[in-house]
């Protein structure tokens, strides 16, 4: 950072405490040049943040117009890129200080142990750490953008390949001999696999970057399990596998995103079918204390204990008897885990080597649709425009600042 001046916003309502901090900082001015702006109220601090640039905010938690963690939250709301260091009275307030860190503060200081050297070091570290944090956020965003751009760019050429092959394959461009048909089928399978992989990567990416929307509605899980069974009936029959369901009749009300849960169960089912040569697959629902458990039990070869922790990691294809599972992208279970995490449920696996595997997930009981803010409902109903709401909020904020 060199010797560039560090611009400090000091938020402290007690004149004597403020004086002490300024005195201590000035003592160390040769080691760390600073410029200090001092205000005694949160509303004034928020105003300064609007007008001027700062490198760090040094704040008391108890202020005339804000108390405790609210101070940290409201400062970060306005200036989330500026590190906040909180000052509390004595070490007895350490609990509050730690809570402040959980709410986004970079560090804390006790006023009764304040000295120039410590203050300087804490400020330097807060600024530096914050700088690194911002870099990380930026890098992670770049990674997200890169992955999604590459996946998007792959889509158009893949569509052309897929439809071009499709046209030849279905005889639209003239009759085919059996050899030609075989090779085209081969190409088609690989195209479908590539398409699946691209979609999985994008799905995974969307969950990672929190862009994936989950739409919770009240649903009947037993009905859905039956549907899944029906949709796999033909594939199972062709492989000579038996399918059965074992459902608990009385289940509590649960809320979930139907399409996403279908995705999870489809993944469990295709894993089970891929793993088995013969035997039975059972889809089960059970009522737990505060949740509903859904499982898919197979009689396949099972999974070795040491492989289990790897299962839900992205791109971890298990060597099932040293064979890579054809047609799998290695993302199915990782995406399933993201889906169940977003439902605040648990996902897991139980397996006995040589006997079979059970994949399960739970959905907590009565997990309601997150309550919407009044404004969102008004906009959704078309009773008020989004601009109007923003305007109203701005006015409100303005009034609060004027107080």
């Amino acid at each position: 950072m060199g010797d560039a001046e560090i611009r400090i916003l000091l938020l402290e309502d007690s004149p004597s405490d403020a004086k002490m901090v300024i005195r201590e900082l000035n003592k160390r001015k040769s080691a760390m040049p600073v410029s200090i702006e001092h205000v005694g109220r949160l509303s004034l601090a928020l105003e300064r943040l609007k007008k001027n640039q700062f490198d760090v905010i040094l704040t008391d938690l108890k202020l005339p117009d804000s108390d405790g963690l609210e101070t940290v939250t409201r400062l970060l709301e306005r200036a989330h890129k500026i590190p906040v260091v909180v000052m509390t009275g004595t070490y007895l307030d350490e609990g509050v200080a730690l809570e402040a860190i959980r709410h986004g503060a970079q560090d804390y200081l006790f006023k009764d142990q304040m000295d120039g050297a410590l203050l300087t070091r804490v400020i330097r570290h807060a600024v530096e750490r914050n700088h690194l944090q911002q870099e990380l956020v930026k890098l992670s965003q770049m990674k997200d953008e890169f992955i999604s751009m590459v996946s998007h760019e792959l889509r158009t050429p893949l569509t052309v390949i897929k439809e071009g092959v499709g046209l030849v394959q279905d005889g639209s461009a003239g009759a085919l001999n059996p050899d030609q048909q075989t090779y085209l089928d081969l190409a088609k399978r690989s195209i479908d696999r590539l398409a699946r992989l691209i979609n999985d990567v994008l799905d995974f990416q969307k969950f990672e970057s929190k862009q994936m929307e989950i739409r919770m509605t009240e649903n009947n899980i037993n009905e859905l399990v039956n549907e899944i069974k029906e949709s796999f009936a033909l594939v199972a029959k062709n492989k000579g596998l038996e399918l059965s369901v074992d459902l608990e009749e009385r289940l509590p009300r649960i809320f979930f995103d139907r399409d996403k849960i279908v995705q999870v169960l489809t993944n469990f089912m295709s894993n089970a079918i891929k793993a088995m040569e013969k035997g039975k697959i059972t889809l089960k629902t059970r009522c737990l204390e505060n949740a509903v458990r859904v499982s898919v039990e197979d009689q396949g070869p099972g999974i070795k204990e040491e492989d289990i922790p790897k299962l839900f990691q992205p791109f971890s294809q298990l060597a099932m008897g040293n064979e890579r599972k054809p047609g799998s992208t290695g993302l199915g279970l990782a995406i399933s885990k993201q889906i169940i995490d977003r439902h605040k449920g648990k996902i897991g696996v139980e397996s006995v080597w040589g006997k079979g595997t059970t994949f399960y997930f739970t959905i907590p009981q009565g997990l309601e649709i997150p309550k919407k803010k009044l404004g969102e409902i008004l906009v959704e109903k078309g009773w008020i425009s989004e601009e109007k709401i923003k305007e109203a909020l701005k006015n409100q904020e303005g009034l609060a600042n004027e107080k």
Partner: protein
Amino acid sequence: MSKKILVVDDEKDIVSVLVGRLKAQGYDAASASDGEQALKMIQKEKFDLIILDILMPVMNGTELAQILKNDSKTKNIPLVFLTALGTKQEGSGYSIAGSDVVFAKPFDFKELLGKIDELLAQK
């Protein structure tokens, strides 16, 4: 008389395979490479359905859709959007009306065809 479908996409290869596929299904298919060219064609002749890409130069898919929806002569033509952006309305900036559908590339042609048949049967 076979139904007439217009395919609008700046990716010439996509247009070729789609027109090929539609003709093989017995549809009458025409094509345009951007929204402006499509609009000129739509004003001249009647189409039963339009398949359009969302991201295109000159005039993109959502701009074209908006013009069509604001004209009483064209507002009832079903629209099928194609997008390389992944799912649904993402990045389209145009809220897609109830009767319109979006397919993410690479789409499944059988699914697309099913939807086209359905939309045309509704008319």
